[in-house]
């Protein structure tokens, strides 16, 4: 079994998730070759061939062309990317050039069959790939990072300039007055609070616990709270001693940002809410009643 793993470069740095790609490949016992798209001096550690294609960090057509070149040379069975903004954009392009076999956000691989999560984590599917090249994207954290050592042998590939799609720069999120990554305790508000006025009661609970206020994405998108409070794959990834999720159903992207918290207590009307997959406790209640009652009891 041969894999070609593709690393992304953002602002000159090779994404650390490259080690998860290597970990997946090792789990398959596969012969691994790698490809880095973009300018970086970072190099991963593994034994095998590493193709390096300096140039733009985002250039769909140009990147696809380089990947197909590497596929031609290496003849892998599986092409592997992370399920990141870079990966889910590029993977289908590669697959489209070879019969459309692409599997997104894979969470497991056993006996030649891939496992995927769907319906917001409420269901899973097992999919057997067909013949021919398969392009997969991995859910972040689903496969253990490789700790392999070794210096790959490098081969340079050329990235042509993509004239139709141009990355013109990056925008950092503005510095925030709250750094959730340093918080020992976080109480987060989700869509279940219903209206912005109810954030006050979540904040009151946070204050009573000496916690920071967090939120899921919909609350930020609705403009009820500043993005600095967002917990999730596109917000902050947090590991506090206590994480209370109030009215948060537990979308995959949110779980990715908080599932490593030491103690997770969820408050939700829906006892089947996916947040229950990562929480130690799920209080089945209307948060509008429970939260003020808990705050009162803590005083």
């Amino acid at each position, binding site marked *: 079994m041969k894999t070609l793993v593709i690393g992304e470069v953002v602002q000159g740095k090779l994404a650390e998730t490259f080690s998860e790609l290597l970990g997946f490949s090792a789990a398959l016992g596969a012969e691994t070759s790698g490809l880095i798209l973009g300018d970086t001096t970072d190099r991963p550690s593994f034994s095998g061939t590493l193709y390096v294609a300096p140039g733009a960090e985002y250039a769909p057509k140009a990147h696809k062309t380089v990947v197909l070149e590497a596929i031609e040379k290496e003849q892998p069975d599986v092409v592997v990317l992370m399920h990141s*903004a870079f990966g889910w954009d590029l993977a289908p392009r590669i697959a489209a050039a070879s019969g459309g076999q692409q599997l997104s956000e894979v969470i497991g691989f056993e006996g030649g069959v891939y496992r995927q999560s769907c319906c917001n984590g409420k269901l899973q*599917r097992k999919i057997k790939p067909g013949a021919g090249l398969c392009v997969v994207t991995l859910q972040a954290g689903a496969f253990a990072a490789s700790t392999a050592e070794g210096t790959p042998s490098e081969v340079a590939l050329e990235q042509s300039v993509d004239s139709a799609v141009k990355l013109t720069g990056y925008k950092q999120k503005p510095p925030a007055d709250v750094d959730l990554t340093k918080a020992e305790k976080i109480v987060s508000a989700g869509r279940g609070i219903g209206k912005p006025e109810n954030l006050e009661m979540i904040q009151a609970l946070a204050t009573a616990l000496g916690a920071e206020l967090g939120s899921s994405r919909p609350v930020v998108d609705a403009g009820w709270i500043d993005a600095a409070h967002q917990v999730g794959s596109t917000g902050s990834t947090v590991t506090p001693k206590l994480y209370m999720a109030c009215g948060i159903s537990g979308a995959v992207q949110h779980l990715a940002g908080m599932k490593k918290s030491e103690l997770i207590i969820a408050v939700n009307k829906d006892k089947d809410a996916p947040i229950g997959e990562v929480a130690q406790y799920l209080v089945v209640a209307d948060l509008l009643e429970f939260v003020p009652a808990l705050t009162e009891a803590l005083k």
Partner: protein
Amino acid sequence: MKILVCIKQVADLESRFVVPDGATWFAETDLAFRINEYDEFAIEAAVQIKTALGEGEITVVSLGPARASDGLKKALAMGADQAVHLLDEQGPVKDSWQVAQGIADWAKPEGFDLVLTGMQSQDRGSGQVSIFLSELLELNSVSCAVGLDAEASLLKVERELEGGLRAMVEVSTPALVSCQLGLNTPRYPTLPNIMKAKKKPFETIEVGDLKPNGQDVQWMGAPTSAGAAELIEGDLASQVAKVVSVLKEKNLVG
């Protein structure tokens, strides 16, 4: 500008899903359906672009079973000009490659300048149809837009990356952009617009054979949850008492 918006009708994700033994999709009886949330941002973006440009024609298309027509009607009520229903009762179990082909086969001769769609569906969440479609239509494409500024021949897209970083991308039309949550605020159709929508052109076309990608969905079901949460139920007072005792046990409160 000819704008195409691709939408999918999905089950309400708050539902309980039951997969019958041996089936590879959940039972649809008693479920409520709605437009895929990501696609709503695409419809809204199309309407805003048409308004900003002062011209344009928006076609909304959906490949799916009979119930998909409800989503198309709502899209018309939000401001799309015409709807096309690519009727396929097996739509929900077709792979993304097939769905993209179905849409591409119809869309190719139409010559759209801009195609907008949600970046993924809430049910399967693979995020593939959008990109597959752009490849089949040979369009430039950018996924995951949280910002979109459209002029007649140039789009300025803000892509959302991990950790709150955004990438600024310029792409020339004709192009496809897939929309991320929070791109805009999708409007609620007003009653007058719902009434007007009834008169807008609505075409139903039966989908032909679509070449599958060879993958075999062997099983679908509930995850075997290792370490699922302990449920705290009962009356409010006892729930509060339980949580306080857990917090005290872990030295999280005095």
